[in-house]
């Protein structure tokens, strides 16, 4: 809901908001430029009487003196029918240059406030400010949700380019954008007279002035009593009208000055509405507050970046999302399908179930598990199809499901069925599906059938589950799932570096080149490779960025491992079919905090990629475990090279098949003091390798962290501990 509140106005008004932001950013420079070119005077240094006297020496036909909020003094004069305007030096009254407002600034200003559309345009610009306000508020709430709490708002951010920079720019600029949007809305409201700006109340013109000759302007007491910094405008009496008076407008109020006696007449202080208007005008334009103007301008410049990255993210979400035909609403559906998936593959199964139920005459509603609400009024059955992410965690589209179920509850006795998707190779097979089953039972649901699991996207197992379900429903249900293959790229093997033959852990670093253009990826992303004859891809962590011009992986040969044997047997120049699966959670966070990289065996691959890209020389500490330094010290020379050029701060390698054998966990324990200091400095930990190693590392780090009253679980909750395990 919150996301829709953010992305819909964002999409709808992206162009308008960008236009307002860019034009606003351009205008924001004006006050600073004006200030740079002007002469500022201290309070008490020059009064308006002095200034008027000096100006009179140089401009006999002066009609009006203006002082802008940024301090420029402008004199308007009419000498024998020749009119002119001149910027003057307030200290001498001498003309500096003819005053001609910049055409470009005026054009930009018109664009900014009315898009050259006159009154209607003011309305459009006001709507733009309203959109900006909605985007800033909903965006801030989304960001807080993403980092789980206000306190974590300044924690380093993760994600791909769009995700990271959208949020990064957002949190930097949100206050400035809120200020600009709110003050802009207020100014629009005053334009349409929805709010009074207090400027219409004019002091009454005095009835008559003292008799006698007019005094020299410099001797008028009321002008002497006004500091130049308070002056807004001084309008001289009309030369043809002997009864006329000076009009004096100041920052505090307006009145008239008797040219004979020099007294201030009919003075009227500005009302609170007027002062409010002036304050908000200043906050919006930065006039007289040049530094604020520049800050707001910088914030506004974040808007185009956020618009573009925002649209990109929306498009990607849309592309990734399922295309469900005949989706009934949550309230009318008799069958509800909720999907938990990390990579959207589970949606393929959900669609097959959806179609089959629809054809059997059911009204079916499918949604992501995160969209769970307790208003499936007509639902006779709820299906949960969910994968498990990482070490028994919820996948992306189900990350909030358990919390939502706990707060919204479940219809009493609601029949349900959970189908888990996973890979039996992993210890925590379908762990999250089990958690959901348990939670639904706790919430008072009635199982329609027992929890079933599907191993490795098996279409046969899925069809079997469909038959079982059909029996429960008393209908024939045929579930046909055709796995949707991601679009693959053809790559050819360009280079192979072999390690570990002597220690019975043959490991190859493989570098592929694209036959056409390399797809986009970063170190830490995954490449899915389809070995010939298998529809199921195997995933490997990438050890480099697409900018490096090659695709590099590190593969250890497993006995009977279909894909690793295939890759180890590839000849140079042989083609493979591969696709990229982004894994934005696993990469170093933005910012200069230290990074602790921990891995064993081929887990070194993405870690080396991170180090290779550490061109900003942030502190990076690598802990790695291998078997024997003479045989499987992967990337040894490259890592030494990075140590020398400071991309890598420290390298701690442990070897298990040498006389004083040690494991990477032992290295962590023996280096506990250094690690604690790094963690105290806000370091993040990235772990890559096998599941057993990851467990050992977690235990070792818990031991290391205990004196700090911290543990891995806390670091994980703070987003400072990330794993890529296999």
């Amino acid at each position, binding site marked *: 809901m919150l996301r829709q509140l953010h992305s819909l106005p964002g999409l709808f008004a992206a162009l308008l908001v960008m236009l307002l932001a860019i034009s606003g950013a351009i205008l924001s420079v004006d006050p600073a430029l004006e200030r740079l070119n002007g002469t500022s005077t201290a309070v008490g240094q020059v009064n308006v009487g002095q200034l008027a006297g000096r100006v009179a020496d140089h401009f006999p036909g002066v009609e009006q003196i203006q002082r802008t909020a940024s301090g420029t003094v402008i004199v308007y004069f009419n000498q024998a*029918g020749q009119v002119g305007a001149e910027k003057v030096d307030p200290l001498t009254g001498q003309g500096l240059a003819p005053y001609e407002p910049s055409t470009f600034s*005026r054009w930009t200003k018109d664009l900014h406030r009315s898009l050259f559309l006159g009154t209607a345009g003011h309305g459009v610009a006001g709507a733009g400010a309203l959109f900006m306000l909605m985007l800033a508020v909903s965006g801030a709430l989304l960001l807080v949700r993403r980092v789980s709490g206000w306190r974590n708002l300044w924690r380093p951010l993760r994600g791909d380019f769009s995700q990271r920079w959208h949020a990064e720019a957002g949190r930097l600029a949100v206050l400035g954008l809120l200020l600009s949007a709110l003050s802009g809305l207020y100014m629009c409201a005053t334009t349409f007279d929805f709010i009074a700006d207090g400027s219409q109340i004019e002091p009454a013109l005095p009835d008559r002035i003292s008799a006698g000759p007019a005094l020299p302007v410099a001797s008028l007491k009321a002008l002497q009593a006004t500091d130049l910094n308070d002056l807004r405008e001084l309008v001289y009496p009309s030369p043809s*009208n002997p009864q*006329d008076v000076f009009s004096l407008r100041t920052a505090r109020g307006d009145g008239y000055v008797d040219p004979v006696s020099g007294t201030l007449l009919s003075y009227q202080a500005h009302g609170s509405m007027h002062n409010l208007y002036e304050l908000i005008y200043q906050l919006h334009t930065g006039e007289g507050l040049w530094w604020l103007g520049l800050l707001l301008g910088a914030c506004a410049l974040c808007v185009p970046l956020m618009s573009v990255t925002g649209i990109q993210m929306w498009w990607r979400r849309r592309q990734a999302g399922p295309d469900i035909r005949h989706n009934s609403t949550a309230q009318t559906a008799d069958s509800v399908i909720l999907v938990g998936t990390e990579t959207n593959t589970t949606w393929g199964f959900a669609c097959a179930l959806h179609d089959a139920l629809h054809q059997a005459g059911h009204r079916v509603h499918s949604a992501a598990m995160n969209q769970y609400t307790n208003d499936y009024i007509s639902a006779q059955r709820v299906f949960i199809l969910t994968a498990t992410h990482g070490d028994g965690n919820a996948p992306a589209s189900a990350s909030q499901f358990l919390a939502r179920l706990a707060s919204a509850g479940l219809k009493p006795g609601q029949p349900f069925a959970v189908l888990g998707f996973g890979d039996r190779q992993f210890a925590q097979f379908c762990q999250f599906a089990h958690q959901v089953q348990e939670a639904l039972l706790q919430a008072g649901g009635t199982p329609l059938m027992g929890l079933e699991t599907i191993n490795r996207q098996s279409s046969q197992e899925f069809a079997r589950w469909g038959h079982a379900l059909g029996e429960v429903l008393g209908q024939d249900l045929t579930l046909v799932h055709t796995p949707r293959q991601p679009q693959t790229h053809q790559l050819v093997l360009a280079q192979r570096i072999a390690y570990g033959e002597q220690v019975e852990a043959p490991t190859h670093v493989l570098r592929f080149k694209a036959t056409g253009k390399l797809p986009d990826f970063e170190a830490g992303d995954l490449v899915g490779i389809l070995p010939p004859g298998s529809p199921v891809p195997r995933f490997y962590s990438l050890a480099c960025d697409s900018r490096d011009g090659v695709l590099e992986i590190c593969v250890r040969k497993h006995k009977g491992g279909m894909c690793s044997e295939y890759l180890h047997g590839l000849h140079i120049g042989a083609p493979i079919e591969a696709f990229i699966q982004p894994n934005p959670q696993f990469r170093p966070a933005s910012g200069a905090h230290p990074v602790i990289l921990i891995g064993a065996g081929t887990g070194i691959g993405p870690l080396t990629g991170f180090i290779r890209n550490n061109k900003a020389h942030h502190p990076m500490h690598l802990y790695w475990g291998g078997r024997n330094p003479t045989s499987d010290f992967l990337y040894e020379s490259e890592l030494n090279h990075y140590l020398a050029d400071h991309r890598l701060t420290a390298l701690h390698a442990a070897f298990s098949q040498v006389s004083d054998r040690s494991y990477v966990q032992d290295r962590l324990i023996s280096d506990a003091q250094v690690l604690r200091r790094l963690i105290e400095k806000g370091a993040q930990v990235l772990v890559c390798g096998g599941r057993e190693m990851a467990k050992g590392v977690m235990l070792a780090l818990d031991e290391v962290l205990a004196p700090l009253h911290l543990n891995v679980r806390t670091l994980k909750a703070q987003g400072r501990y990330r794993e890529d395990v296999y």
Partner: protein
Amino acid sequence: MKKIIAATCLAGVIALPGVAQAREVTLTTQLKRYSGNDAYLAIYLTDATGQYQKTLWVAGKKAKYYKHLADWARGSKMSPSEFDGVSGASVGSGDTLKVSVELADTLIDAGYQIRIDSAVEDKRDARADVSVPLTSAGAGKPAAGNTYVESFTYDL
């Protein structure tokens, strides 16, 4: 291209005491080409000493900017009854404003003047941009303005 803004004032008979005869007068104001937003104009009648008498036309709809038409603003005190029914849109650079107003015969050749105050946002305010005597002889003869007005003509 010139845009002709024409408006006719039907009800604006100037009711000076003892006046019975009135006639329609056409006021044509052509603006110079300047860089800036549309101009606000006040066309009004003064006596020979420049004292405000009567508003003939106000171009510009936002009353909060009227104070920039300084002499007129002082004379009329910007009271809405002074310009009720004799106001219209502001006039753009290079455009022509053509309006017809009713004027009592006794005001002609009686020492009165027609004046125009003009103002453009963020630019100078011009008091008495135009100032011409209201005479039968001066009718139809263009008078030059000194700030935003290129020429002003009244046709009796």
